[in-house]
């Protein structure tokens, strides 16, 4: 998950909903965190999804091209995982 990012978007209309549903077919792999899959995306739903490092630029470009506002919940997922696992290692020393 090095440099993998987690995005959050909130589709504002049906066009954006369809875009998000199709994104998973264009960009792979995408791991939908919420909802469980692209199938379940509806208008005004907050959608969280994980994108691998090599695809983050493409995804950002596509979101911008389609005027979809986004925020990035995790800039580098591996760093956050490492933080937790470091705690674990410390606690079991």
């Amino acid at each position, binding site marked *: 998950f090095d440099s993998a990012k987690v995005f959050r978007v909130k589709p504002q209309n049906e066009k954006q909903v369809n875009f998000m549903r199709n994104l998973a077919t264009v960009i792979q792999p995408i791991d939908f965190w919420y909802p469980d899959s692209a*199938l379940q995306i509806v208008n005004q739903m*907050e959608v969280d999804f*994980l994108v691998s490092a090599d695809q983050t630029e493409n995804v950002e470009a596509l979101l911008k091209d389609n005027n979809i506002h986004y925020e990035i919940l*995790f800039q580098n997922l591996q760093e956050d995982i490492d933080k*937790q696992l470091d705690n674990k290692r410390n*606690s079991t020393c």
Partner: protein
Amino acid sequence: KHSYTKYNNWPQIYSWITRIARKNPELVSRIKIGNTFENRPIYLLKIGKQRDAKKAIFVDCGIHAREWISPAFCQWFVKEAIRTYGKDSSMKNILDNMNFYIVPLVNIDGYVWSWTQDRFWRKNRSNASSNACVGVDLNRNFDVLWGTVDASKNPCEEVYCGSSPESEPETKAVTTFIHSHLSSIKAYLTIHSYSQMVLFPYGYTYDKVPNYNTLNGLAKGAAKAIASLYGKKYKYGASASTIYPSSGCSDDWAYEQGIKYSFTFELRDKGKYGFLLPESEIKETCQEIMLAVKFLANYILNQT
């Protein structure tokens, strides 16, 4: 090196299950309910004073591998039930008069995979399909309108529902146990993360269940109990309208078996951490959900 305020791996949970049953034989017994696809034993802990109590609540944790806070809660619940029995009159009353059937970790294979190979693994590790993709979403594998609403027949999808209803040994272990104890099980709770919600059937349709008003009132009460501790707001309502429609989920299945008090808990948080809820939040999360479970247990005990 098991800890209630850290995430524990499967060997730690396994030895904890063994130890807690051995140390507390008057309150806890360990029952093997099946094996996983990779042949790991699935254990259930029966908590309660009554050998043949007329009422019971079934709780499962860890259907989805990456939702680590879920099994952490089941471990916390068992610990707190034992610790407070004899100190807390409410807990004593509950455990004197009803049993809890707790499955601390349903999807063991997936959980092991999430610890060792892929932190965000969701499904089990079944490779029974001819497709190269591995895993079935156990929470789409139950036999209620299976594979019809927002569940995928594609083994590569995260919501792949399996080759048939209850095709997975983990699902079968849960359903077989519940079937054989159906006369006593009054409530079913399944613990997931994230998004902070208390949900109840239906998920496969927008139709309201016959006892909608009761379940909605109980979910509201549970959410209120949760908020009373640290102010965390949990949404509540029927699954389809509150989260999204889906079929083959365990809470709908339990409801259709006649367990009319069926709830799904989506624990902290609302997306800031997602499946990476920090260990520093385990304690508070478990404490607040404990209040909700006790609230529901008291209702089941007194009103059903």
